[in-house]
């Protein structure tokens, strides 16, 4: 009998980055198939291919042994492949029941909405999941965890043959996780295939029948779960080569510049304390959602901080707005280049000068020549490939855009620079340029907090590594201690190292 879904030689690249390279494995009906790998290993791309959101460059997909082209989300649904989305499908004004059945209400007499049928179906689903809210609860009243449970209920309601769950347990309590696992096991008995993606390896061990490990877009292995102990999985996930990375220069570390004590933001992170020193590059690792970026945003005055204290150069600093943070010598390069980093329809010069306009225009009048000179300086320093400072940034490549964002923050001459995924989605050459720049800046005395999903980047660049797990600092590792295994273990909560 053929597998429910079989992937043969699936390959997908974005620009210069190879997200998936010749990946082949089979997903059997009536089994839970765990998909594990580091951030950037290619799991999300694989999910997107299975659900028709992106199309592979090469390779074939067989469903029930028949080659299929999944061109759209609709095609995927037709084939019985359903993925659990997160936030975007939420209708805050509607009830839980309508959220689950939006766009496909059960029909009763005269093709009208059959509220009764809808409510009882949803009540049954929610009961199976053991949640505490009912079908009539307005979605607006639910927090993130309950929204996620609703999303799970929605996926379960669709009678899928292949159900893809991407980090379904991230925000759930142990009790809810138990219920979810019970539901997943019932689905398995009904012959449904479940692809289960999780960073929590103990969950993988508890639930999965089969485990597939991906690394750098390549398929490492697909094996029965009982033959793969957790340590073995970690070993298979890591072990990437160190090519094309810039070696960090050794820098003498100076006095403390920024001190954070007991930082907390309710529901996001809590009790985070650390210190950054002059000339130091500190890596902040952890899985997406562990609160890494949120800490940076709170320090920079974008999100509110509920508790904790900050000192810069020994003086109290209360983050209130990005403007105030800039004045105290902080700069933050956000991870979302498109929506937070650059004004796309504006020129390189305008973007470069954006954070330093008050200094560039003392009388309030623009000084275009100064702006262009500033832009030119950074175009040269960072090797930005643009025809002139007047070029519109939208027309630049991703890597060059990222360098413009970096220019914008370097122009502000910060003393502490927070970099959030500075090399995400850029080509190898740009990555090396960014690393070279970071290293040189640190040597000149800049303090850098480097947030990255890429472990090798963290390990290669950092003097010290902080690891987050579920909103808390799980470990603090020196450069010598920071290995991929140790970081992953700490990030996955497998060891509660003392911070």
């Amino acid at each position: 009998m053929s597998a429910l879904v079989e992937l043969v030689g699936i390959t997908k690249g974005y620009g210069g980055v190879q997200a998936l390279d010749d990946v082949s494995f089979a997903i059997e009906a009536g089994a839970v198939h765990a998909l594990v790998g580091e951030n950037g290993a290619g799991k999300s791309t694989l999910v997107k291919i299975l659900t028709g959101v992106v199309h592979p460059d090469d390779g074939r997909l067989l469903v029930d042994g028949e080659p299929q082209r999944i061109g759209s989300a609709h095609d995927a649904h037709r084939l019985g492949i359903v993925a659990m989305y997160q936030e975007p499908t939420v209708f805050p004004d509607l009830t839980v029941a309508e959220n689950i059945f939006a766009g496909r209400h059960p029909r009763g007499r005269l093709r009208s909405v059959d509220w009764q049928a809808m409510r009882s179906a949803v009540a049954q689903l929610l009961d199976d999941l053991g949640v505490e809210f009912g079908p009539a609860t307005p979605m607006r009243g639910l927090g993130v965890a309950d929204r996620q449970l609703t999303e799970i209920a929605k996926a379960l309601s669709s009678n899928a043959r292949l159900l893809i769950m991407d980090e379904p347990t991230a925000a759930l309590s142990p009790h809810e996780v138990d219920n979810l696992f019970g539901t997943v096991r019932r689905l398995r008995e009904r012959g449904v295939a479940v692809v289960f993606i999780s960073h929590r390896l103990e969950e993988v061990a508890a639930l999965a029948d089969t485990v597939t490990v991906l690394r750098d877009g390549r398929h490492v292995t697909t094996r029965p779960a009982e033959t793969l102990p957790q340590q073995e999985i970690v070993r298979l996930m890591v072990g990437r080569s160190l090519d094309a990375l810039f070696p960090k220069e050794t820098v003498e570390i100076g006095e403390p510049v920024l001190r954070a004590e007991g930082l907390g933001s309710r529901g996001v992170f809590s009790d985070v304390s650390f210190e950054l020193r002059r000339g130091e590059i500190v890596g902040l690792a952890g899985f997406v959602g562990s609160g890494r970026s949120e800490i940076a945003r709170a320090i920079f005055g974008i999100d509110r901080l509920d508790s904790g204290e900050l000192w810069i150069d020994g003086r109290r600093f209360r983050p209130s707005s990005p403007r105030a943070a800039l004045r105290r010598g902080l700069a933050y390069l956000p991870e979302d280049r498109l929506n937070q980093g650059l004004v796309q329809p504006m020129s390189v010069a305008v973007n470069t000068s954006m954070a330093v306009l008050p200094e560039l225009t003392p009388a309030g009048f623009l000084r275009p020549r100064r702006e262009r000179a500033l832009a030119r300086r950074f175009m040269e320093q960072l090797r930005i490939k643009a025809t002139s400072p007047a070029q519109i940034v939208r027309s630049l490549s991703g890597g060059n855009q990222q360098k413009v964002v970096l220019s914008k923050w370097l122009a502000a001459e910060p003393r502490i620079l927070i970099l959030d995924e500075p090399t995400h989605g850029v080509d190898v050459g740009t990555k090396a340029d960014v690393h070279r720049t970071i290293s040189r800046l640190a040597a000149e005395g800049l303090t850098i907090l480097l947030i990255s999903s890429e472990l090798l980047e963290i390990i290669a660049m950092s003097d010290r590594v902080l690891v987050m797990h579920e909103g808390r600092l799980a470990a603090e590792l020196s450069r010598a201690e920071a290995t991929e295994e140790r970081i992953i273990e700490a990030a996955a909560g497998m060891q509660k190292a003392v911070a």
Partner: protein
Amino acid sequence: MSPVVGLARRAIVRWEALLVVMILAAGVWSWTLSSFFLRRANLLDLATPYIFIGLVAFGLTFVVVAGEIDISVMSIMAVAAVSIAEIWSAGVDVWLAALAGLGVAVVLGLANGLLVGLLDVPSLAVTLGTLAAYRGLAYVILGGSSISGLPTGFTDVGGGYISNELPDALLVLLAFALVLGVLLHATRFGRYLYAIGSTREVARFSGIPVARVRVTIFAISGLMAGFAAIVYLGFFGSVQADAASGSELIDVVTAVVLGGVDIFGGSGSILGVLLALILIAVLRNGMQLANLGGATQDMVIGGLLVAAILAGNVLRGAQSRGLPWTRARYARKEVTQAETPGVHSSGT
């Protein structure tokens, strides 16, 4: 430079050029209707009835460039005009009254701005409400009566002529165009507006005082409505509570949008708005020469408004999607950008 960007830039340059061509075409049409059109007196006086529209449109331009909208402007103008007239008729010096009127206009604009900038209520909803509320205020102040007979020295601002030919109001308009053009295009404040109108998040992340700027633009819009009230009083010589409650708002919005100001914020120029205003003036003048009624004229202007936005949308579509032969390249870029983390909780 990428061909698409070049094309887009040339299209923007051409937008103002296109307006000039349309003005000339409308002029030729008017001339064929009546040779009176080309008389110097008529040409100079052409825009006089629309000067107050232009001043309000300039103010609105600041709001729209920053990605907001203010449809209460005509009501603010009415309140300012009514206040000036009422205060003057109570025996106060007319220039002091005008100053008070400007103050009232700024306060009303500020009220809009505070709701939008500080409480984050969408400007569209706020100004839809104040459009009615401020008009009601004008009625409450003046009731159903009318005030006229303001001193000549004052009414000259909107209705006077230098050597019987050159309208004072035209000079007022050009002076404001110059000052506001500099403010919008050559100052830090102007740059902030474009940044906020393009991507508010980026502006905030870059340390731009977004809330303060958003409050300020509504105050500017109010202030310009106040100046417009002075010109209005001068031109018409009298005022009622229902002043400018008809098609004037559409004329203002049309001048702004037809002038090339992106209704979604982030681009536009004072020059474009000025040209659009002249186009509206020439068209209305021509339609009057052709004996078309006010309602028909309003229809044409309304159609022009819709056409201008549709044209802008088509242009923007071409800009972001690329033209057919460049589309493939851009589609690929969009996919790469869509890869920035966000939707899924694990990395790529």
